[in-house]
């Protein structure tokens, strides 16, 4: 180590702060995570498998995958469209729209679920119309998808907006003058330039879509094997004192988190090098 500089704190301060941070992470993240895994596998592989392969659990897994399969592509398309219009056009009310994109981050997911019920429930504004057409939204799969879409809307847009802003519009203008159509500009210039940011947003969006509890809990109605997602199924098992099974199913969500974390780290690294490249080509 070199000699102490003016901006450097003494060693004991540094170690104390690092130690405090590590202790915090250990208490709040590592220990609970280890506990989940330990509880999940304590009864042996067979018990774990039985809990996960249970028909209700399998239905919950299928539903979660279905919800993510609808919500993530939808929000990817919304996110790209929102980021494109917010960074490429000048219009009135732009800053308002930017704040609105963030709204789902600001409100409790429970409220998001309540809004869905308010709009689409039997007593809701659109309820009678939906009923007349034989459509069921609340306490059914469409309601769960809608609530999830709302809650996970900001992830992709939030990731893309600052990145596209920093990149500017010159490359797109160049493509336009060179004769590219709007679609060609999107697929050959814009998307390749933002691909790592986009993927990062998609991964975060997916993690949240699979793990969302509050909003989904309000609209699902908790019908076993029908409208329970993985998080709801975990809660049901837990409330029935089926701790072992509950932890076993919970460990699936934990795996999603792990995969997300690794993918996120890898993408952050990719993005950094892409940004460094961009900076160098503008130097």
């Amino acid at each position, binding site marked *: 180590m070199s000699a102490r500089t003016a901006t450097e704190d003494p060693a004991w301060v540094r170690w104390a702060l690092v130690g405090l941070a590590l202790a915090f992470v250990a208490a709040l993240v590592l220990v609970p995570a280890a506990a989940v895994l330990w509880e999940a596998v304590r009864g042996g592989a067979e018990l774990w498998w039985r809990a996960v392969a249970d028909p209700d659990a399998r239905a919950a897994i299928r539903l979660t995958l279905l919800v993510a399969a609808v919500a993530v592509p939808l929000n990817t398309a919304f996110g790209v469209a929102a980021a494109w219009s917010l960074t490429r056009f000048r219009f009135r009310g732009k800053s308002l729209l930017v704040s609105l994109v963030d709204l789902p981050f600001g409100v409790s997911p429970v409220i998001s679920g309540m809004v869905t019920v308010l709009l689409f429930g039997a007593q809701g504004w659109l309820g009678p119309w939906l009923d007349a057409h034989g459509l069921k939204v609340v306490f059914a799969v469409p309601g769960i998808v809608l609530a999830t879409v709302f809650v996970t809307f900001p992830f992709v847009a939030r990731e893309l907006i600052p990145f596209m802003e920093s990149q500017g519009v010159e490359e797109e203008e*160049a*493509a*336009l003058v*060179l*004769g590219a159509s709007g679609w060609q500009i999107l697929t*050959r210039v814009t998307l*390749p330039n933002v691909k790592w940011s986009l993927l990062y947003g998609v991964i975060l969006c997916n993690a949240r879509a699979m793990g969302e509890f509050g909003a989904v809990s309000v609209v699902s109605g908790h019908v076993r094997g029908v409208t329970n997602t993985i998080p709801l199924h975990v809660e049901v098992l837990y409330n029935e004192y089926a701790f072992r099974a509950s932890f076993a199913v919970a460990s699936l969500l934990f795996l999603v988190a792990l995969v997300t974390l690794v993918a996120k780290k890898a993408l952050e690294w990719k993005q950094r090098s892409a940004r460094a*490249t961009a900076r*160098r*080509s503008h130097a």
Partner: protein
Amino acid sequence: MSIQITGLSKSFDANPVLRDVNLEIPEGELVALLGPSGCGKTTLLRILAGLESPDAGEVRHAGEDVGARSARERNVGLVFQHYALFRHMTVAENVGFALRVRKRPRAEVTARVDELLALVQLDGLRERYPHQLSGGQRQRVALARALATAPRILLLDEPFGALDARVRQELRRWLRRLHDELHVTSVFVTHDQEEAFEVSDRVVLMNAGRVEQVGTPAQVFEEPASPFVMRFLGAVNVFQGRVDGNRTWVNDLEFAAPGTSGGAGAVRKSAHVYVRPHELEVHRAAVPGSFEARVVRLVPLGAAVRVELSAPGFGKAVEVELDVRKGEALGLQPGEAVHLSPRRARVFAAPDGEADSLTASAL
């Protein structure tokens, strides 16, 4: 292809950027749009490219109104100030982009890319990415890319702005040679007088959204049409004068009356007399039509020497530029008294409401 611009106006959020611009660019010419930043030159270029639409006025290419044609359909080559190369594409992919989006056969694209890379002398860098290139190389890739579809009009936005001085010199000459080979009608934007004079056939001087003067570099320098042009193109001494009939007097020095270019032919009482530093003669003794000045400082400028003087008769500083040999022959020393006589002067009517506050001798 020739370009005709008539009555072009454009505002951004109620700020006028272009005011009634009229301009004719003949086929095959290389024209510089020259002016200070904010004068509207880049906006004019973007309107020519179709990236902005004018609020009023018309743009014609070879007589045909292109107002309804989008940037995509104009087939104009455009080189951006910061090149705007596609960062995730190689040099060859960048250059071939315009042909690929037109769905040309692969063999044709490859052949054309080879031809263009040879033209800009970058044959060896086909597979490089933009961030692996120097500024000058990027500039040439941008140019090759803009030329891919053989556009009949080439537009360049501050093409040398982001390069260091030596590379800029080289690229200027190279661009001029390239233009002499291709003869494509070209318009480039610059705020650098030297660059405009060195590269272009004609210079369009712009100020505050208007065209001040159009002419060859020699014309605009020797016969500036307005005080703005006079001041923008190099240093100048400005003297406050009184108009009396058809003469203008600065103390007891006599000059012609101002032309009508400064104000719409109205009779005015005051005028400004502009004298370039190299158009002042230095004498040891008084001669007819000279005034007295005291040497303050000598600044060697290589081939020339700048003499800064104070002229007590006018209460102001005066600048003279001499070539080195003449300077040596005179052997001037700071503090010495000399006599100056203008070899040539340009007189413009003072703008309305201008007091004698104008004391800056040089821009």
